[in-house]
């Protein structure tokens, strides 16, 4: 160290240069956007096929008032949320319009990160929009986002093996057992891995059994008799011998692939599988029906994306306008046909071209009108983590005991008290 003492003036000059660079960097970076007087609306949206076309449509419609720049968020939901949350916590003004998964509305609204929709924009966002998706964009009776697309799971079955689709889980298990006895493919696929997919199934079953997981205000863990009944159904299914052996490890695409490769007779999955299975195995004969319920028809959990405007947006008025354009009826029709995402505006289901691209639209619409929403609480992420952990693996559920544990840990999660696994 001592031997290599450098010329004394050099560190000094270096320090000045470094300091100057540090001071200049943010200033230079800030010049990046909004040059040549254009108003830029930054759209942060999950990867969706052909969304570029929709963005281009809207840029044309804006006629120079603003330009939407589409930045893709990561593919995984956790990655999307983490990026947005981190940037919002730092009050990043570079995000204007964001795609929120339906379960994030309460969290972002409560944290004060997204703007409430009011006046004309609110009226337009609500006009003709289905009730379920709208409820997923609402927190404490205020609208915080505009539903862009929705999603519900269906029961997909092999039409060459099954004549009448089962309507309840008991019927489903019986039908699969009959197939098993006659040595045909009989396996039922479900997303049972320890992740959000399992929560979706359980939420559907609970709602179908008339149960409640979390109180309406999102503050109390209820987990009532209906929720216990749903645990019984889930356990019964997992141990019936007709569920896939990799149930506790299966996500959407694992299930789709197994069904597509003719290893299954039934699968519970999102509508995206329609196009994927047709492309993957054109010879496969399959049909669809409503998701099976507990006693009667099921109340199916809604998925999908809503568009929200950041609190720190530089151009709020333009951002609301852009969000409305991205989800207007014509663009929703385009996205439904070209990217396979179910629309949130009811009239779009009857629009031109939908019958061909979306033959299951009537079943979807039927489910959407009698749908279930996942617990609405700012602590949804915590609640979801707890639910999927406590329910995994579904084979080892002990209805009463599991329900008691779930209630206790869920309450801690809602209070943001406990430790997340």
């Amino acid at each position, binding site marked *: 160290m001592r031997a290599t003492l450098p010329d004394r003036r050099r560190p000094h000059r270096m320090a000045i240069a470094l300091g100057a660079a540090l001071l200049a960097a943010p200033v230079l970076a800030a010049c990046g956007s909004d040059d040549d007087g254009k108003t830029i609306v930054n759209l942060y949206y999950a990867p969706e096929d052909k969304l570029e076309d929709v963005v281009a449509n809207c840029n044309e419609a804006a006629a120079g008032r603003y330009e939407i720049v589409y930045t893709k968020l990561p593919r995984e939901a*956790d990655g999307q*949320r*983490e990026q947005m*949350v*981190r940037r919002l*916590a730092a009050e990043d003004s570079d995000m204007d319009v964001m795609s929120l998964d339906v379960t994030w509305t309460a*969290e972002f609204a*409560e*944290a*004060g990160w997204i703007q409430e929709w009011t006046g004309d924009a609110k009226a337009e966002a609500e006009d003709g929009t289905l009730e379920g998706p709208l409820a997923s964009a609402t927190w404490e009776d205020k609208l915080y986002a505009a539903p862009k697309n929705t999603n519900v799971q269906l029961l997909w079955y092999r039409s060459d093996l099954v004549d009448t689709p089962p309507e309840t889980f008991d019927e489903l298990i019986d039908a699969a057992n009959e197939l098993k006895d006659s040595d045909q493919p009989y396996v039922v696929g479900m997303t049972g891995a*320890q992740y959000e997919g399992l929560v979706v199934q359980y939420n559907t079953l609970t709602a179908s059994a008339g149960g409640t997981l979390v109180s309406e205000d999102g503050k109390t863990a209820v987990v009532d008799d209906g929720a216990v009944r749903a645990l019984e159904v889930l356990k019964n299914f997992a141990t019936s011998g007709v569920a896939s052996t*990799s149930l*506790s*490890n299966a996500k959407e695409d694992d299930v789709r692939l197994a069904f597509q490769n003719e290893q299954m007779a039934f699968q519970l999955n999102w509508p995206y599988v329609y196009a994927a299975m047709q492309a993957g195995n054109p010879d496969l004969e399959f049909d669809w029906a409503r998701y099976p319920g507990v006693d009667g028809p099921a109340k199916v959990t809604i998925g999908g994306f809503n568009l929200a405007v950041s609190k720190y947006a530089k151009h709020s008025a333009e951002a609301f306008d852009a969000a409305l354009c991205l989800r207007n009826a014509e663009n929703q029709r385009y996205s439904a046909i070209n990217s396979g995402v179910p629309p949130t505006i009811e009239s779009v289901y009857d629009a031109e071209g939908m019958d061909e691209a979306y033959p299951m639209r009537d079943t979807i619409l039927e489910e959407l009108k009698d749908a279930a929403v996942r617990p609405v609480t*700012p*602590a949804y*992420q*915590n609640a979801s*983590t707890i639910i999927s952990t406590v329910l995994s693996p579904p084979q080892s559920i002990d209805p009463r005991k599991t329900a008691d544990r779930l209630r206790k840990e869920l309450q801690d999660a809602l209070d*943001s*008290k*406990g*430790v*997340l*696994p």
Partner: protein
Amino acid sequence: MSMSTSAVAAASEKPPPTKAVLSEGKRAERKLGWLLCAPAVIVMLAVTAWPIIYSFWLSLQRYDLKFPDQREFIWFDNYVTVLTNEYWWTAFGVTAFITVISVAIELVLGMVLALIMHRTIVGRGLVRTSALIPYGIVTVVAAFSWRYAWTPKTGYLANTFAGDTAPLTDRAYAIFTIILAEVWKTTPFMALLLMAGLALVPEDLLKAASMDGASGWQRFVKVILPMMKPAILVALLFRTLDAFRIFDNIFVLTAGAQETSSVSMLTYNNLIKGLNLGIGATMSVLIFLAVAIIAFAFIKLFGTAAPGSDDGGKR
């Protein structure tokens, strides 16, 4: 990590030779020394001390970004919550297990590798370079290739060893896979540190020992090992501290499913995913304490053999 390096650095500084009155020149020199150190000290304080203090401050609060209105000072409640929680202790157990097993395996393999690298005569550069390749690969990239290799149907390791099961979904197998990835990745680092220790062993001593009839094994155990003890301890200390903070391998391989979370994973889940700054900060303070205790134990337990404390004061 910062603990360990500063501890090592502090220990290697020689204490002042005598307590005699310093001459004018000496004092000026010392003052200059302090001045020259000042920028580094200030930077160190800004980037290490301040975050530690801030984390501690956060850990005493109920502070969840989802509920910004409910922020309040709650003393040590977060510590009670974490330390009475089952998930924390499970993660702690998993972390400790991975640390102990992987460091033990690395020490043995690292020693073998170091001896090979040290003794190689032909193609020495090639041998050393190829041995170091795993260490040069980004951990996340390596972890992904392990994951794909263990994925049923697509991965060659899964096809060869696992048959129809999915190894990463079973807890014992998953932890084994994590340890394997960790060992593969960091053995070269261990070997590198040990090789530096091997260079300390005088060739004359080994020759003398073999003249006295010591076998190869005896020379290794009685001469080489004692001579390189300080290097072994440095290597163990570094690797233990590193292994205890294991994150990327687990994040990619299992994402903490099947109870394979390490304490760092758990902290990440609570802090970044759960947005709970209070609980997250509490966990990071606890990890810091654990790391500090490990470093302290190494220095204390191994006493005079500890790195840097080789009777420097008596000289």
